[in-house]
C-alpha cells in the first residue's frame, strides 16, 4: 500500500491556507495525518495536493480564560492528556482524548482532526483491492449502499471519541473561509450524513481553526465512557458522554447525553433531561433512562457486530456513564 503522488503545501499563515484551499481544486487538509494517511493508502481519497497546517503557529495555541478554554485545532491529543488544567476543569475531555487510538498515535493526532474525522463502515475502510471485488457503494460513488442493499444514501458510522464530550460541554468551533471567520456550535457542524458528515466535508471550503469550551458550572460532573472490541487500540463501538448536576436533595437538576459510534454523526439525546430531571439517581431509574435513550439510537450493520448487540451495549454504556457521573454504583 503505497501513497499515490500528490503535491504538498505548508503555508505559514491561515490566510494563505484558506486561499490555496479555495483556489486549487481537489486538495485535502492534513493535520496530524494519522487518519488521512490510512485513507490515502486505501485510495479512499485521491487528492491532487495536501494542505498541511503544521506551520501556522496560531493553530497550536492553548488559552485558558476565567470561564472557557480555547484550543487551536492543531493541539495534539497528547498535549490535552498532559494538561493538569484540563484534567481539573474538563475531566471528560481528558478521558475521551486518552481513549483515542494508542499512545503512539496521540503524539501526532490533533483535536481538529478528531472533530473532522470521516465516518466509518465495514465496506468502506478497506483496501481498494478489497473494495473492487464488490464494486463501489454509495459513499465511494456507486449507486446503492451495501449495508441496506438499496438506498441512495450512506449510513457509515461516526466514531470519533471527542465530539460527544465537547457537545455535552456545549463547545463552539471557529471556522475560517473565504468569507472570513465564523463561530458555530459544534453540534451544528455535523449533518448526520454518512457520505459527507460535516460542514467542511460537504464542501464549505473552510478550515477548522479552534474550539471554545466553556467551563461547566460548579457541581457539574462529566464523564466519557467508551466500549470497543479491542481495549488496547480501537474505535468505539459506542461512546457516551454525560454531564449532569445534582441539587441539594441529590435530585438531577440537569443532564445532557451525547453518543458516538451509532449513527452518521454524534447523537444528542435531548429526552434524557425530561426523563431524569427531578429524579433521585438510583440504579433502577438509571437503567430505565438508559433503555429509553438506547431506543433512540438506530445503529445499522456498519461494523462487525449486529445492530441489536450495539443497541444492547449502548444501554449499558449509557447507564454506566450516568452512574459514574452521579456517583452511583449500578
Amino acid at each position, binding site marked *: 500500500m503505497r501513497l499515490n*503522488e500528490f503535491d504538498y503545501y505548508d503555508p505559514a499563515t491561515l490566510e494563505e491556507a484558506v486561499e490555496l484551499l479555495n483556489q486549487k481544486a481537489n486538495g485535502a487538509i492534513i493535520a496530524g495525518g494519522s487518519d488521512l494517511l490510512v485513507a490515502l493508502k486505501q485510495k479512499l481519497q485521491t487528492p491532487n495536493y*495536501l494542505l498541511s497546517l503544521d506551520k501556522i503557529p496560531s493553530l497550536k495555541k492553548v488559552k485558558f480564560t476565567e470561564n472557557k478554554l480555547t484550543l487551536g485545532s492543531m493541539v495534539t491529543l497528547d498535549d490535552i492528556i498532559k494538561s493538569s488544567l484540563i484534567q481539573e476543569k474538563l475531566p471528560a475531555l481528558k478521558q475521551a482524548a486518552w481513549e483515542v487510538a494508542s*499512545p503512539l498515535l496521540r503524539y501526532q493526532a490533533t483535536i481538529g482532526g478528531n472533530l473532522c474525522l470521516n465516518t466509518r463502515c465495514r465496506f468502506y475502510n478497506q483496501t481498494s483491492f478489497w473494495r473492487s471485488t464488490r464494486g463501489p457503494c454509495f459513499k465511494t460513488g456507486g449507486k446503492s449502499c451495501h449495508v441496506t442493499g438499496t438506498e441512495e444514501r450512506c449510513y457509515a458510522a461516526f466514531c470519533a471519541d471527542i465530539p460527544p464530550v465537547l457537545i455535552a460541554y456545549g463547545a463552539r468551533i471557529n471556522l475560517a473561509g473565504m468569507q472570513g471567520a465564523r463561530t458555530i456550535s459544534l453540534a451544528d457542524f455535523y449533518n448526520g450524513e454518512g457520505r459527507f458528515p460535516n460542514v467542511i466535508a460537504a464542501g464549505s471550503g473552510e478550515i477548522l481553526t479552534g474550539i471554545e469550551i466553556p467551563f461547566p458550572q460548579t457541581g457539574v460532573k462529566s464523564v466519557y465512557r467508551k466500549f470497543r472490541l479491542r481495549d488496547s487500540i480501537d474505535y468505539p463501538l459506542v461512546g457516551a458522554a454525560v454531564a449532569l448536576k445534582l441539587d441539594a436533595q441529590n435530585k438531577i437538576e440537569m443532564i445532557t447525553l451525547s453518543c458516538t459510534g451509532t449513527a452518521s454523526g454524534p447523537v444528542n439525546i435531548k429526552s434524557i433531561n425530561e426523563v431524569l430531571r427531578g429524579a433521585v439517581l438510583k440504579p433502577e431509574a438509571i437503567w430505565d433512562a438508559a433503555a429509553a435513550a438506547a431506543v433512540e439510537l438506530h445503529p445499522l450493520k456498519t461494523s462487525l457486530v449486529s445492530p441489536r448487540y450495539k443497541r444492547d451495549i449502548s444501554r449499558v454504556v449509557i447507564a454506566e456513564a450516568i452512574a459514574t457521573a452521579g456517583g452511583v454504583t449500578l
Partner: protein
Amino acid sequence: MKKVIKLTVNGMEKELLVDVHSTLLDVLREDLGLKGTKKGCNQGECGACTVLIDGNPVPSCSLLAVKADGKDVLTIEGVAEAGKLHAIQEVFNEKGAIQCGFCTPGMILVTKKLLDDNPNPDEQEIKEAIAGNICRCTGYAQIIEAIMALAGRKQVR
C-alpha cells in the same frame, strides 16, 4: 513533487531530497537503509515502525517524511552505544522478551520513552505505554516482565 528536508537521525544530521508522498518509514528503510524499523500493518495499528521523534514514540508509517523536517529521529540502530547494547536491549534478551523480533525495535523505543519519563512505572502504566505495540509471539508476559525488571519492580500475577 520533491522536497529537501533536514533530519537528525541517530545523532547524525542529514539533508535529504524526498518525495512528498513518502512516509518517514520508507525514507528510513529505503533511502537510509535503516531496516531495523519494521513495516508491519503500514496503517498505524501495530507499532512495529515506531521511532522516537524529538523523544516521543510515533509510528513512522503514519507520518509523511516532510512532516518530520527539522526533527530529531532515533531509530533502533541508534539505541546501542559504542557497540554495547543498551540496558533495555540486554534485559529483553535475558528475559526472552524477544522471539521473532519483529515488534522488538518498537517495544524497545517505547520502553525507552516510558523509563525516561518515569523510571518506576507499575504494571498498569507499562501496559498502557505498550498499548500501541502489537506482539504476536510472546503473549506480552515476558515483555512486561522485562520492563518490570528494568523498573526494579516485582510482578504481581
